[in-house]
């Protein structure tokens, strides 16, 4: 069974990816590849919506960092949408990376933030 699913939508020059399910070492590499492949060169950046993720561990955090690095070298931005009172919020907080992440509440706000930056 595939633990997680990724749904993509294009909002003008921004790609929005919604992840659903659980992210761990069994699927993180595949998801990283899918996120980078779907953010085409002409896009301003990627909005990663993690609100429907039920589990995320340090591999998932590595995924976020590695996507951010790859996008940065292409001159593209990354914005996360996270519910802080959730298991994903816990993972970011416990690992001490929450404050380094550009987190937004809604898809609209994330898109606007990417366009302003």
């Amino acid at each position, binding site marked *: 069974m595939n633990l997680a699913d990724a749904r993509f939508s294009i909002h003008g020059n921004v790609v929005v990816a919604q992840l659903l399910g659980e992210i761990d070492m069994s699927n993180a590499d595949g998801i990283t590849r899918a996120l980078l492949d779907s953010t085409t060169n002409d896009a301003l950046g990627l909005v990663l919506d993690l609100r429907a993720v039920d*589990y995320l*561990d340090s591999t998932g955090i590595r995924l976020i960092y590695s996507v951010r690095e790859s996008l940065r070298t292409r001159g593209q931005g990354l914005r996360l949408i996270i519910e802080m009172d959730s298991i994903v919020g*816990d*993972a970011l907080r*416990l*690992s001490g*990376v929450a404050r380094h992440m550009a987190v937004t509440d809604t898809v609209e706000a994330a898109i606007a933030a990417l366009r302003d930056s």
Partner: protein
Amino acid sequence: MLLTAVGQVSPNPQQARELYRLSDPALSELGLDELLDEMLIRVRSALGVDTVAILLLDEESQQLVARAAKGIEEEVDRGVRIPIGRGFAGRIAAERLPIFIADVDHADVLNPVLREKGISSLLGVPLIVEGALLGVIHVGSLRPRTFGPGDLGILQLAAARVAPAIERARLFSALAHEHRVAVVLQRSLLPTRLPEVVGVSIAARYLPARDEVGGDWYDVIELPRGLLGIVIGDVVGHGIRAAALMGQLRTALHGYALEGHPPGYTLELVDRFAQGMPEPAMATAAYAQFDPETGVLRYATAGHLPPIILSPQETRSVELVPGTPLGAFAYSRCPEHELRLNAGETLVLYTDGLVERRDTLLSDSIENLIETIREGETPEDVCLLAIDRLMRIGPGRDDAAIVALQNTAIPGELRLRLSAEPRALTEVRQALRRWLSERGIAGDAWREITIAVGEACANAIEHAYSPAPASFELEATTDGDWVTVTVRDTGRWREPRGRNRGRGLTIMRAAMDDVDVSSTAEGTVISMRRRLSAR
């Protein structure tokens, strides 16, 4: 040049002996190939001809195909095919009458082998059984020759002798073929491996009918969020068509279920799918979603038999509004029921092959089934008891499927031994979540312990990078206000590498009160404690 059959034939004594040789009872002991071979040899000697050949009708192409030959064996090897109505053999088949050609005009003969051999005279008769044309048998002579009524009688006798044998063999092989195809099809459609989930035990069986396959199926589906789906279904009808239809409905249901739709809506989607099929398709099915964490069973049925719940307290068949069968009525609704499967209880889904007897009320039959399986302690036992009873019923039974799922209690101490592969992490999370929930642990503690244990196990899996199969162990206990989790592997601790590594340990330390990592030559042990109250 044409010669038609001439009423009754009265053979001379010599020919009578030849006739007797053709009706030798020993011939019926032979297989079709041997029978045809033997028959051709006897016909050749009885008529004193140079060639004998049998061509059989291929219904699909409406062509005669060389099946057996003497004197012109190349005909078979080359796979000579003659269209009905054309050439010598084709005309015999089209007109269903004997044809005699005394002096072969090559324009009349399509068969290149006959032309190359330089056949001068030909006689052929149709092979007919119960009004149906099976093919043609013909004989040929290299020197010009006249075939008289006696010769025709012998050839007709041979035709009458082989035609039923050919028909029998054909029917037999067609049926055997259909049965083989259907069995292979059905087997390929049933799950080969049932999922293993801590706290849940599952078993299933499919038993084909004696002489044909049916459209019964079961399925067990690992759903997102740790839910388990179990399915039972029964397509109306038998044979390859029912089996193929079963495959389509089973796949549709499996696909819709993986999308995460609730049971009632899933069955409604399969119903729409069945409505849209080019041929009418009707089936009954039931789909249950079990949440091992809570014991909640969401259940929907499209006209299927009621589920049985085996319980140490009260074993019962659960009467529910069954909904209408799949494919029966447009826009039918499939109500959903919420049941509970407590620790120790077993849900049993089955098809009518397990209960239907012509002379018994259905409700009595279900009672009988319950009586048969109630002593089964595990799902495996339940399936064995049900199948044993069915086998005793003897011939004439329908196909049958059964699937049983038991909510097995999780002991106070959780102990798991898992293979060191990434997919083990899902199993750990499922078991741990349920174990925590059963101890009344919720909220922050529940989430943070889950994350910390996930990290410790991911660590154990990363250690096991040797090619040999490796495993790791997890142990979780509670002691008053404390939860203790230990993860043991047999690999060497690896110092975190790279900028993004080492985060696992950070997470474990932040989530738990104590974390102890000890690494020896034998392996690494991570021991963690967490206080439940007032952190």
